């Protein structure tokens, strides 16, 4: 017993004779809740992903109705997996490991519960509002402003609870896993707030505070760091805690883990612009993003090696221990994804990979392999401990592991193959110097078999995850009735007493005390001082953000203005909101890169000055359909009516969903005036007259378009339907720079 206490207090025995013992009750009930939520939402998120995979392979699967088309479900899938599955897994890890590393119960049970239920409430709100089409469209930041405010509140409660637990700790030193948690909590808060700054136009609608290239820059600074600080750093904390636990040996190199931590915190924050290569982002920003991304490769591999080497001498345990199997494959995927990421950030590679399914393969190597398998490993390790009984079936867990692994491999191989095929076909020229595949659909049909392989891989992964659910359920059923909190005894921290003493002594003794502390090195001083540590982390991430973002926002010549680019007409603005609501951005980009093949296929490349009225930007990140940046004037209105009603009527093998309701649903102009007013507030040069007459202007333009459709032989009476607004918007896309003169004051 004595030795245990010595180890707990971290001091050699004897030097501290007055060791008192304190009793700590860890809150495991909250961990159980988060584990269950992780599994339930994980299955939901994966199921939605599976539906999406089927929709791309077989378009009739979009026929579930207006709320369940590909465009509306895709953000539901990404949000569910990122925030509900990975998010709850992170919280389970944080609540379990922090209490034990700090030798303290969470500061407040009420706050823990509020955090749990608040977070689940946010998820439910997302599951309802996203299919309804309430979205800010920025990837992983789709949720509208009221939900964002609640998210902020819940996050703050979580943070306060966490930091007050830190303050109550009985262990002076903060283990590296806690550093990763601290960095995650702080950075996610900063990212969330900055990227979600919007001006509401209604209860669930808003315009971004940023426009065009600025909006894109902020979005991908956010998007990339959401990957870093929600899907990487907390999972590294998870790894550094649960891997040594499961292997029953300390991490291979603690020094390496420190390097790993600081490099990631310092470097990751800069890498965001690699999502915007060859766009109208200024060249310097995209180069900074590339350089820092390449720098990330080394610390990431340091972390992977640290994880894998922790198992040195324990590899035999892998044979029958599913937990370690999951961890090893998870960490291997971490290494793979963090090698591939820097590679994809190299501009020449990115020219091929961007907008293709290669990116989809990359994120799923990360999400299914790294996040998924680390989560399942942790859950299988936790189940017997949280439910105080043996895992129901280790064999089932092993089956899960193998099916899941095969599922991931099928998935990513299919998507690599699809992505590279797309990339090569889009850029292929024949010997006469013309595009080899001018019809975009050719490049879609070519990858259809791969879409089916993805469905297979995804189904396997989903099915294997249900096995985890069964295992948890059956274990929980045979759990003892009394799942009371575990109670441990730890030494009363001597350093706390010393602090109390130190505060009462005179100046001389205080100086001696400080000298004593410094003898142990300032780094130790720091880590015993979480507030300062947290501030340092904040400084580290802010410098990267500010150096990148502020010049972009301030310096005018980053966005050369184009005289002929004018604000959208009221009807076009409404059409744009329909485009946003239907999630067209999840299949269509609006950003033509200055590459020969793209200019040939789509027209003049996109300029930064064209987006100055785009709030939010709609550049997109994936081309399942063709780019639409220069769509205006390409087809007559009637073509669009037919195409939206049934894309197969104009493009026989199209996989785009049909949108027949656009022809029947009435156009709601109720908030058009408000929208113009908010735009004016944001500096868009509408006149007060235009805002006052917004509805009249919209109706007049709608009437004109409806008349042309009828003249072209289409259906009559569309002037008050949503389709006319959408057509007005689509016909406006990319035409302003072709004008000699700015469009007249007519609209």
């Amino acid at each position, binding site marked *: 017993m004595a030795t245990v206490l010595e180890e707990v207090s971290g001091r050699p025995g004897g030097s501290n004779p007055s060791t008192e013992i304190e009793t700590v009750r860890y809150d495991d009930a909250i961990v159980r809740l988060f584990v269950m939520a992780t599994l339930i939402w994980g299955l939901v998120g994966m199921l939605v992903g599976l539906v999406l995979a089927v929709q791309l392979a077989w378009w009739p699967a979009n026929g579930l109705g207006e709320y369940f088309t590909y465009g509306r479900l895709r953000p539901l899938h990404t949000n569910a997996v990122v925030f509900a599955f990975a998010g709850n897994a992170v919280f389970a890890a944080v609540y379990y490991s922090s209490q034990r590393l700090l030798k303290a119960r969470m500061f407040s049970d009420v706050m823990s519960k509020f955090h749990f239920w608040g977070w689940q409430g946010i998820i439910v709100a997302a599951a309802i509002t996203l299919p309804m089409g309430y979205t800010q469209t920025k990837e992983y930041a789709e949720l509208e402003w009221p939900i964002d405010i609640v998210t902020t509140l819940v996050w703050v409660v979580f943070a306060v609870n966490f930091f007050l637990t830190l303050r109550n700790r009985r262990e002076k030193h903060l283990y590296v896993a806690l550093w990763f948690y601290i960095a995650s909590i702080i950075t996610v808060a900063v990212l969330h707030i900055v990227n979600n700054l919007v001006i509401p136009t209604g209860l669930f609608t808003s315009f971004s505070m940023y426009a065009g290239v600025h909006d894109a820059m902020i979005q991908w600074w956010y998007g990339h760091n959401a990957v870093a600080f929600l899907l990487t750093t907390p999972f590294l904390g998870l790894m550094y805690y649960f891997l040594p636990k499961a292997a029953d040996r300390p991490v291979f*190199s*603690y*020094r390496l*883990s420190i390097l790993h931590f*600081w490099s990631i915190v310092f470097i990751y924050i800069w890498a965001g612009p690699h999502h915007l290569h060859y766009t109208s982002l200024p060249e310097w920003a995209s180069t900074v993003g590339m350089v820092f991304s390449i720098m990330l490769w080394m610390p990431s591999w340091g972390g992977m090696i640290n994880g894998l080497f922790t198992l040195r001498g324990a590899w035999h345990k892998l044979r029958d221990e599913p937990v370690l199997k999951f961890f090893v494959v998870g960490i291997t995927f971490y290494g793979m994804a963090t090698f591939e990421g820097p590679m994809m950030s190299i501009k020449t590679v990115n020219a091929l990979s961007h907008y293709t399914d290669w990116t989809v393969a990359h994120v799923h190597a990360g999400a299914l392999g790294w996040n998924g398998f680390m989560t399942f490993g942790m859950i299988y390790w936790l189940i017997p401990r949280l439910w105080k009984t043996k895992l129901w079936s280790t064999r089932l867990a092993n089956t899960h592991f193998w099916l899941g692994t095969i599922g991931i491999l099928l998935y990513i191989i299919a998507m690599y193959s699809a992505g590279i095929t797309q990339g090569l076909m889009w850029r292929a020229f024949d010997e006469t110097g013309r595009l080899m595949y001018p019809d975009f659909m050719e490049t879609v049909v070519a990858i259809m078999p791969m879409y089916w392989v993805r469905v297979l891989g995804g189904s396997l992964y989903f099915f294997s995850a249900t096995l985890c659910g069964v295992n948890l359920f059956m274990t929980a059923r045979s759990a003892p009735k009394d799942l009371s909190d575990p109670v441990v005894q730890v030494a009363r921290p001597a350093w706390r007493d010393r602090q109390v003493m130190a505060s009462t002594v005179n100046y001389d003794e205080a100086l001696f005390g400080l000298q004593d502390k410094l003898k142990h090195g300032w780094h*130790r001083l720091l880590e015993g001082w979480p507030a300062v540590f947290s501030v340092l982390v904040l400084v*580290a991430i802010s410098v990267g953000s500010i150096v990148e973002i502020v010049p972009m926002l301030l*310096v005018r010549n980053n966005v050369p203005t184009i005289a002929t680019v004018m604000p959208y007409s009221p009807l076009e603005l409404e059409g744009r909101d329909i485009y946003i609501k239907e999630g067209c951005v999840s299949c269509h980009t609006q950003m033509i890169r200055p590459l020969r093949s793209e200019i040939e296929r789509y027209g003049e490349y996109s300029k930064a000055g064209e987006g100055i009225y785009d709030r939010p930007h709609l550049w997109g990140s994936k081309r399942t359909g063709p780019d639409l940046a220069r769509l205006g004037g390409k087809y007559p209105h009637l073509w669009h009516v037919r195409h939206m009603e049934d894309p197969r009527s104009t493009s026989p093998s199209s996989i785009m969903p049909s949108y027949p309701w656009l022809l029947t649903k009435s156009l709601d102009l109720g908030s058009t005036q408000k929208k113009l007013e908010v735009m004016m507030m944001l500096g868009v040069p509408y006149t007060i007259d235009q805002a006052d007459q917004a509805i009249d202007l919209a109706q007049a333009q709608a009437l004109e378009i409806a008349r042309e459709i009828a003249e072209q032989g289409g259906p009559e009476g569309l002037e008050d339907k949503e389709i006319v607004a959408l057509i007005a918007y689509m016909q406006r896309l990319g035409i302003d720079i072709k004008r000699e003169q700015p469009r007249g004051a007519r609209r």
Partner: protein
Amino acid sequence: MRKDIMEHAGLAIYAEIALIIFVAVFVMIILRAILMRREHSQFLSRMPLEDGLTVEQDEVSP
């Protein structure tokens, strides 16, 4: 207006200073980690393995 002011305020120097501090702190941290004493890093690395001494439930229950 706001942009004109900010552009002419000569703020670029702050970004450069920030960058220098950034790199300096980073280098210091790395040196510190590399030079950390072996016993200390070993002690730290064992932290997750110690949960405290588990007490049998009936010992503490009322």
